[in-house]
């Protein structure tokens, strides 16, 4: 899972972007996000949009060891703030009938 690290202020972001929202530098290097993240907030969504088949859809925001915060679907049935998660590559939804891939988070 590849994000970016700002060479100026060392902040890490995912997904990749061209400029640092913290210090505005455009000098960002690709960086490996790693496997270690912690859940900081979550929700169980019952009003799912078109293209999502899970009911309910469980979403969360995780914080990686490198400081980056990332949003994704959670695979676990039982979730708790502070639980340890790792990213897995999977189909996340359909957009106009085509499958779209992204990183979900599963318990470690």
């Amino acid at each position, binding site marked *: 899972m590849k994000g970016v690290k700002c060479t100026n202020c060392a902040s890490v972001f*995912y*997904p990749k972007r061209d400029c640092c929202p913290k210090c505005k530098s455009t000098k960002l290097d690709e960086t490996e996000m790693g496997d270690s993240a912690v859940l900081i*907030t979550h929700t169980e*969504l019952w009003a*799912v949009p078109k293209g999502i088949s899970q009911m309910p859809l469980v*979403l969360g925001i995780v914080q990686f060891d490198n400081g980056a915060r990332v*949003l994704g679907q959670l695979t676990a049935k039982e979730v708790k*703030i502070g639980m340890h998660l790792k990213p897995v590559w999977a189909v996340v939804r359909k957009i106009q009938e085509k499958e*779209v891939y992204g990183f979900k988070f599963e318990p470690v």
Partner: protein
Amino acid sequence: MPREVAIVGCGMAQFGNRTDKSLMDLLKEASTKAMEHTGLGETNVSALYVSTMLAGELTNQTAIASALADELCLVPAAADRIENGPASGGSAVKNAYLAIAAGLFDIVLVVGGEKMRQVPGDRITDLLATMTHPTAEYIHGVTLPSLAAMFTRLYMNKYGVERKHLSMIAVKNHENGLKNPYAHIHRKITLEGIYSSPEAEVNNPVIADPLRLFDMCPISDGAAAVVLCSADIAKRFADKPITVAGVGQATDIHAVSQRPDPTTLNAVKISSQQAFKMAKLEPKNMDVVELHDAFTILEIAESEDAGFFEKGTAHKAVEAGVTSLGGKLPINPSGGLKARGHPVGATGIAQVAELTWQLRGEAGERQVKDAKKAFCCNFGGFGNNVVSFVLKRED
């Protein structure tokens, strides 16, 4: 030297499930009412700004501002469509302000509207979700309610906001909405019905936990319009012109997860500070406020980030009744988005219309006594574009 700008009239087409009128009809209704309220008579409008987020998508008509100019016989007035998501209305009013302040136009009609209800709910949810970050949010099935829910959970854990505070806001706004003839929802709800009774589990079901049905504004059709003009001619139309004393606008990092503090609405903070600074006023000077409560939690968060309460304390003010119609700082006397409804492009203009009625003493049963200074903020996306205004009545 920028000119002073005044608001001299407003009008609304009732928000709701408007199967009776097309989008164009709704825009015309609000516009006509606003122009009549102003008492324009034979005076020509120099420009028209039309605010709508979904018009081309949902109704088969693009370039709607140009079309409306002809429908209203305002030709050859200048006309633009303004789109800024749910902050389209605020942006449209801002653009009218800019044009008049710059001396380009003297009298401008701003109207916003939406027809959103005749489309299946999951399609609307998805369309609104396209405002979110495409790769960081949208592809994961994120919807605005889910972002608001995760935001709410963080807020509850950090500041001690509880479900009952959110329900109190819903009850208050429904109560206010009963007094607003233009509101979508005219239905009393009680704290017992949506929160404390065992039945509340079914009455107020979870939509995106911890947010429930009565924490979310409805999907509405409707339109709202205001007329602005250069202050030096305002007395022609209104005994008590309302001055646009302060304007502010700011953006925020798109993906909520990437914001340094996901519980701070930085665009609300910055845009409100800009508006207060320009008006040479402070939050504590305000008599009445309209906030963008697409979700009940936002009324709490915006009231703090706009400076009305210390961060993390607004829920206590709600509990103490400070923000109800009879309280020290009435918030959303119109019923807010929760009860007034939320035809996306119309909302920002409806906020300005409400405050105009309030400051002119024309708000009927929901009148805030002696309202002279008012604030509103129109919240785009999930807070990544916010337009704020400070309005005051010249005495």
